[in-house]
């Protein structure tokens, strides 16, 4: 491949483009998504719209299915042979709506464009700089001369540059937990994703590191479409543009961040949401 990988990526679609008209503000649409592991369903008929350039927060307890939704967006479930997934997931990638769940898809390219940061920082066992340059040179394949600039840009975007500037060649494992997590964020950003998935990115971190990550996320909003998972209503209030509350494998409620005010805990909120829903159903409407 002599052709610049970046151009290739922008021109080509991942699979089959979809021509249907969409709401201009959206970057993703999930319809009737269902996922099961070993025959046990964990998601039932999830519908979700993902607004473009906004931070969508999936809120819920562990086991409620929020991470499963997240992993459907970059087809990470394909890594688990006991999983089954159905329904439609359409994403706006490279300006084109694409069906990423039904039709054949270039999975590696999809995963580059839909970046992901995990719950616990999983840096590669190598130097700080190589954590960014290795995936970059394997997927986007920019010319060597650009590599350094791209790494620096991504580290600055993740608000990490000042802290690691002088130890780029030290092992990444020497960084603190919070720094490692921001390194993972920078690593995803370096691949120029359009959508960024964040799986409880602060749950393994202390208060200060959480603050640093949250600040970074706020600054990324607008440039990227963000989908984050959290179990902390406070975090949702601070960061989210829209919130989807998950319970028992379904979307129990959708709301704005301000609607979360007044609930003492996630538990209280989910209970009242589900109670409201039940009485709504019981009323026969």
């Amino acid at each position: 491949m002599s052709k610049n990988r970046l151009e290739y990526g922008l021109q080509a679609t991942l699979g089959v483009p979809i021509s249907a008209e969409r709401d201009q503000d959206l970057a993703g649409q999930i319809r009737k998504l269902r996922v099961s592991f070993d025959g046990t369903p964990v998601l039932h008929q999830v519908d979700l719209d993902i607004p473009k350039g906004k931070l969508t927060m999936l809120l819920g307890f562990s086991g409620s299915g929020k991470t499963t939704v997240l992993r459907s967006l970059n087809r990470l479930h394909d890594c688990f042979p006991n999983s089954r997934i159905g329904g439609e997931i359409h994403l706006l990638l490279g300006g084109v709506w694409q069906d990423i769940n039904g039709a054949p898809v270039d999975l590696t390219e999809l995963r580059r464009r839909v970046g992901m940061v995990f719950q616990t920082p999983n840096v590669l066992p190598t130097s700080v700089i190589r954590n960014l340059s290795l995936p970059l040179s394997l997927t986007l394949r920019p010319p060597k001369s650009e590599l350094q600039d791209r790494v620096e840009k991504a580290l600055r975007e993740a608000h990490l540059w000042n802290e690691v500037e002088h130890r780029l060649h030290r092992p990444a494992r020497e960084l603190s937990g919070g720094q490692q997590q921001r390194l993972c964020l920078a690593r995803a950003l370096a691949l120029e994703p359009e959508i960024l998935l964040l799986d409880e990115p602060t749950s393994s971190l202390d208060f200060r590191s959480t603050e640093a990550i949250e600040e970074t996320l706020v600054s990324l909003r607008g440039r990227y479409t963000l989908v984050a998972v959290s179990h902390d209503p406070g975090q949702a209030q601070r960061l989210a543009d829209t919130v989807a509350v998950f319970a028992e494998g379904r979307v129990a409620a959708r709301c704005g961040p301000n609607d979360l005010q007044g609930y003492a805990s996630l538990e209280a909120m989910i209970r009242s949401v589900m109670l409201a829903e039940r009485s709504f159903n019981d009323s026969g409407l």
Partner: protein
Amino acid sequence: MERVVATLYAVAGIGAGLVGVALLVFLTAYSWPLVTQGHVGTVLSTTWNPNAGSFGIVPMILGSLTIAGGAVLIAFPAGLGICIFLNGVGPRWAARPLRAVVELMTGIPTVLYAFVAVFLLVPVLRNIAGGSGYSALSALLVVAVLITPTIVLTIDGRFEQLHGQLYLATVALGLTPAQRLAWVYLPAARNGLIAAMILGFGRAVGDTVIALMIAGNATHVPSSITGAVRTLTSHIALVLAADTQSGAYYSLFAAGLLLFLFVLLANIALRYIGSKERST
């Protein structure tokens, strides 16, 4: 009662450990006359001719190194390739049975590899390279097969650890399986690779039966890879089986001591690698 049982466990444990020490003491004691009688030079010569009083084992040392080195040269890259195949490059339908075959290979009697090679490999090499076909080359090819599972399973164990930490992260970065294995797992498993090489080499040096049956057993310094050679291990077997006068025995114990010291060194190296692994 409690004390008695605990003592029994301790006796067994310490006794088992002392077996290793006993081996070292025994081999040293039996090779010692070489030093006291000033025969060290004869043993470290290149001529083996017990009737003329020359008991040089250098040709056998070279024979062992040729076969073990050649076998590792083949089996290490192949084992690496198989590991990569088993951990994501190969499709599941192929990887699962192949893993079972590699595990099964650890239990296959060495004598059977040599037995089959006598009828299938030796005649082929005889036609291609000339000579009798019983050569260093035949033996090292078979030993390569013998040590492949050792190498594969050692590296695979390391990959398995890395897999838990890094698999999803690398997949989510959009790396292909080959990229994940070659650029992320391999460099991270560097110590495992060295350990695999040492273990494979050790297993190759320790093999007796393959070398005995198909390496040709010539006692001169190997001149070509298609020539007949004798290893330290098969040398011990051949000389003892032939019942030469006791003059030759000392050199056999020296050969045994050499093999044992090699294992000792290899294990010290493995310890060192292991401690480095833990500290990172």
